């Protein structure tokens, strides 16, 4: 879990740029992009083959490190059969997804609302920023025992944990985004005699949006991480529960399947944010030049 501000607040360019598909040099770049995409596939495929080959040679026991082929067939059987020990993979996934959705939804709403209050007024900053900073430095997962005492072992402590994890990056980035809006553009709004609400709507919020979206991505990442940790404690459904069961039955292949599902869900949400960025920030130079 990242705790330092350097990791939680990023310059928006840092994440919207970077990556092979961000090469922006007009139309010919597209072909280069797909070629690069293919080139980048090589090393993961080689790793996968090495993993499979290793198991054929029997260097590490299949029990400890099941080969990709076995992980795949386990995944298929977890999807197709409803075993008494695990249930089905898709049910577990839905339960986990629901936890993240609720926790993230609550956390994101709180984070953005508080950032609006602190970002837009000095009074709000003095009133609400210190508690948020305190929350930021709190070791989140150290709260788990306290949460169990307070809220038991049901859904509430899990969702609360995810919500807090989601709140912080969105809060910090939205606040920083609002405060870093170009003062010259705010002056334009004043000269054009915008009312305060219009100034916020037309100048401040759009100006803060790039960094808010960066916060959104970090926030989603933190939510998934919190989910994994939260689900390891006394869950009776979901991917974390599946992992706990598999641990007891010494089924590393099942654990691997669950980890891969976490990965895929994380990638999926990241892709959604990218899509959102591309639509919401279509005015930006790096998107314009495509």
């Amino acid at each position, binding site marked *: 879990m990242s705790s330092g501000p350097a990791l939680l607040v990023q310059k928006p360019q840092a994440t919207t740029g970077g990556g092979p598909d961000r090469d922006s040099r007009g139309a010919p770049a597209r072909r280069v992009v797909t070629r690069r995409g293919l080139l980048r596939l090589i090393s993961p495929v080689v790793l996968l083959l090495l993993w499979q080959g290793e198991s054929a040679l029997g260097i590490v026991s299949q029990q400890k490190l099941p080969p990709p082929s076995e992980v795949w067939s386990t995944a298929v059987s977890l999807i197709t059969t409803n075993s008494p020990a695990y249930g089905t993979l898709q049910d577990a996934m839905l339960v986990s997804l629901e936890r993240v959705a609720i926790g993230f939804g609550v956390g994101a709403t709180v984070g953005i609302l508080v950032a609006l209050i602190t970002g837009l007024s000095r009074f709000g900053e003095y009133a609400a920023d210190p508690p948020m900073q305190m929350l930021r430095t709190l070791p989140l997962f150290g709260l788990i025992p306290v949460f169990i005492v307070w809220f038991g072992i049901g859904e509430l402590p899990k969702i609360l944990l995810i919500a807090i994890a989601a709140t912080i990056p969105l809060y910090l980035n939205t606040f920083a985004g609002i405060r870093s809006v170009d003062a*010259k*553009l705010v*002056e*334009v*709004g*004043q*000269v*054009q*005699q*915008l009312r305060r609400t*219009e100034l916020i709507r*037309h*100048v401040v919020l*759009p*100006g803060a*949006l790039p960094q808010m979206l960066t916060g959104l991505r970090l926030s989603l990442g933190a939510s998934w991480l919190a989910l994994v940790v939260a689900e390891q404690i006394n869950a009776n459904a979901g991917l974390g529960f599946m992992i706990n069961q598999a641990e007891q039955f010494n089924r590393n292949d099942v654990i691997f399947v669950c980890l891969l599902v976490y990965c895929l869900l994380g990638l999926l949400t990241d892709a959604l944010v990218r899509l959102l960025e591309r639509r919401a*920030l*279509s*005015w*930006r*130079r790096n998107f*314009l030049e495509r």
Partner: protein
Amino acid sequence: MARASGLTREFGERRVLDDLDLEIAPGEFVALIGRSGSGKSTLLRALAGLDRDLAGELTVNGTVAVAFQEPRLLPWKRVWANVSLGLRADDPRSVADAALAEVGLTERAGAWPLTLSGGEAQRASLARALVREPTLLLLDEPFSALDALTRIAMHRLVLRLWAHHGPAVLLVTHDVDEALALADRVLVLSNGQIGLACRVEAPRPRDRDQPALVDLRNRLLAELGVTTEGKK
């Protein structure tokens, strides 16, 4: 139109405007020149209502609009939406389109500001200022970042718009020739006050080699501390 008397502005120890008096008549084109750091922009910001730490008296009647040195277009709004920013009209789009047509930017109305050239962006900024039908138009070195050819075209455009809409104009510039080409009256700001004010009577468009203008230019340059000795 606009009147300042005893206007004073201090930044820490430094008095940038020191008991300054200024009057701009309706429809008058005034150019304000001065060395960098002389307080030109400070005075303009005061007139624009962007500075609240002023001492002295300042009255500005009617609507004020500003075109800044950088065009300052909101990058997330299309050109026409930038022009109609803050406009209280039933159909802001058509008002914006009319203003863009006046500055020759009709085809770029739907473009993103970051795709405009420097000259286009500055014209959009002028359209945004004009769309409010200002009675006082403040221009803060709006042509200084443009290439020479574009600047000449912009001078013509500003004169045309001024003749058509008739606002009082205060043009802040560091370019003596620009001031002489455009203004009815040229003011030199030095030591926080209007050090020299001279009227330019020559009819427009002005030929910069007219003897009357050459004389004026030398006087203005002398006031700015530039001697013409050694030059032919």
